[in-house]
């Protein structure tokens, strides 16, 4: 390791100081946290010369490092939760996580569906819960700096297990909120273990005020057993003051159906990473996203799709609408191992640029070692179609409204593909994010 870099920026030093100050109070095995933090100490904040972070230069973008937020009073947590609108129209079992800590009094812990167990991560860490063995099911994610920092700082989250064969009809909704008067950081880790043949829908929402400088680092790990079905819908509604890092890992067994959709509408800076590994045969996995950006926002979606087992199908569809001087980034890597024959992988990223100052960086990558696969990727980038705009306007629809119709339909494709068409409430909850964004635009 000739080019090991040392902590050498004030922000990196501040993060080290925060860790030193807080580590004795964090639950669980101190050694594991130290090991994770050593990874950060070694590499520092990622910067543009690190290929995987080329377009999101954290060293340049993060000029301050906030300390971990303390747990809120129940009243303060409830006030913040009250103000968070996401998925409110969808019936669900709600689990509230405010400033990085589960708020039991604002969660439906007594109403968990049959066959579902839940513990808080802090309890699980303190008790050395057996399920924690599933953390880090995708080892390569551990090298990622956002993940390493999460492992070092994680305060709380949920550990959910869905028992074999359980069909959970009511979605589980993880509601994350962050509030405060001065800059805060949070680190949450959640683990969802779905046993063989079970099915569950997970909703995940994030909310915080625009004016608050905050640095959330959230990670959700899913371990999906054979023949299980998981649908995951995420709304990243962090405020413009956010510098948000998030990671989703999905370790998929055989004959699984897994879907995740991420909608990004507000955060100032966001990097969402998805690690999806096809470990069992005949599994279908889909990763989708709809991102809308304006002002100086920066949103990065980075995928690591890993086909290890044969006969699997992966689908990635990402839609980005960019206005103002905002920047979108899509990096999608699909790796197909020699053994993963008959892999069917299709990845598409489309961006519509709504202003001269809008930027999109698309980087699809295929790494294929098997010789009998069907893999394709595509990326498009352009303005709204003038002919379509003219058609709508020729019917009397004014330009802003005509643009809104086209942008909504563009973004909506990712939602329509992900949501069961009979699920009107969920569809509405997701599309309304785009409508709210579009209404603010015109």
């Amino acid at each position, binding site marked *: 390791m000739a080019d090991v870099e040392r902590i050498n920026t004030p922000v990196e030093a501040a993060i080290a100081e925060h860790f030193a100050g807080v580590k004795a109070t964090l639950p669980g095995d101190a050694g594991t946290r130290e090991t994770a933090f050593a990874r950060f100490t070694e590499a520092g904040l990622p910067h543009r010369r690190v290929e995987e972070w080329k377009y999101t230069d954290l060293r340049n973008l993060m000029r301050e490092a906030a300390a971990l937020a303390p747990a809120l009073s129940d009243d303060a947590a409830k006030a913040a939760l009250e103000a968070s609108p996401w998925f409110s129209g969808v019936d669900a079992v709600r689990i509230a996580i405010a400033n990085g800590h589960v708020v039991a009094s604002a969660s439906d812990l007594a109403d968990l569906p049959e066959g579902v167990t839940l513990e808080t991560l802090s309890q699980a860490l303190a008790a050395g819960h057996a399920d924690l063995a599933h953390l880090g099911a995708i080892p390569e994610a551990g090298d990622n700096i956002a993940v390493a920092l999460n492992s070092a700082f994680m305060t709380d989250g949920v550990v959910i297990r869905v028992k074999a064969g359980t069909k959970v009809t009511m979605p589980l909704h993880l509601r994350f909120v962050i509030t405060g008067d001065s800059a805060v950081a949070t680190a949450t880790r959640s683990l969802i273990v779905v046993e063989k043949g079970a099915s569950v829908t997970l909703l995940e929402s994030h909310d915080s005020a625009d004016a608050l400088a905050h640095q959330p680092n959230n990670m959700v790990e899913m371990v999906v057993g054979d023949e299980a079905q998981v649908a995951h819908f995420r709304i990243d509604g962090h405020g413009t003051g956010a510098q948000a890092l998030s990671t989703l890992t999905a370790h998929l067994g055989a004959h699984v159906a897994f879907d995740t959709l991420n909608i990004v509408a507000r955060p100032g800076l966001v990097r969402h990473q998805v690690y999806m590994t096809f470990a069992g045969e005949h599994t279908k996995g889909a990763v989708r996203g709809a991102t809308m950006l304006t002002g100086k926002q920066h949103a990065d979606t980075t995928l690591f799709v890993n086909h290890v087992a044969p006969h699997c199908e992966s689908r990635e569809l990402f839609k980005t609408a960019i206005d103002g001087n905002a920047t979108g980034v899509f990096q999608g890597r699909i790796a197909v191992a020699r053994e993963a024959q008959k892999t069917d992988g299709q990845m598409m990223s489309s961006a519509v640029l709504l202003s001269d100052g809008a930027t999109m960086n698309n980087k699809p990558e295929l790494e294929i070692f098997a010789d009998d696969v069907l893999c394709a990727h595509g990326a498009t980038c352009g303005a709204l179609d*003038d*002919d*379509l705009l*003219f*058609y*709508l*306007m*020729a*019917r*009397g*629809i*004014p*330009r802003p*409204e*005509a643009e809104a*119709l*086209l942008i*909504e*339909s*563009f973004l*909506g*494709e990712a939602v*329509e593909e992900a949501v069961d068409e009979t699920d009107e409430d969920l569809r509405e909850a997701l599309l309304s994010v785009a409508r709210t964004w579009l209404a603010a635009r015109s």
Partner: protein
Amino acid sequence: MLEIKNLVVEIEGTRILNGLDLTVNNGEIAAIMGPNGSGKSTLSYVVAGKEEYEVLDGEIILDGQNVLEMEPSERAAAGVFLAFQYPLEIPGVATMTFLKAALNAQRKSRGEAELTTPDFIKRVNAAAQQLEIPKDMLKRALNVGFSGGEKKRMEILQMALLEPRFCILDETDSGLDIDALRIAAEGVNALRSPDRSFLVITHYQRLLNYIVPDSVHVMAGGKIVKSGGKELALELEANGYADYKAQEAA
């Protein structure tokens, strides 16, 4: 009602309309016929306000207002309607959402109240029934997966709903079989009124058997070269455009 004076139009440096004059009176159906490339579709786009055409000279006066300064949506609100030769497919935009947005936008610009949903649906269903448009077509994304004939009928449906003052039919007959042509023409005829005028652009006289024009204009080389009554269409059908093309070349 509509008066076009000395219209000169270019696209990407190529002259398409070359001093075109045309007047269409209240309640009149004017047909424009002409060979390929004579500028008929350009004329329809320029009246509706498509951006990429550069108007170098002339004016288009609708009810005393020069529409050239208006956005396409403002022209629509002022009463211009273009039935497209090739209606566009818009995936992800539901037909009903589009129709409602268009109707309410026009009502709003005229200072009228938005329609209630039941009232809106009633109007759409009535128009659809007349044009033999099945209800499941209305449930799909706009024009997506529609046949050529269905798309044209959807154009006429929009025209019926929006009740424009000045309708341009750009080769509405192209791609239609004889039954679809009859249905579309009946839809148009049902909209005939002393307050509404039509500009019917076509290559063939056949459409004019169904939509009988008050005047026929021959377009060649970017202007109107001959005007007459409906018998002019029959003459063209018999003799073709050869005379006019020769005239253009000369």
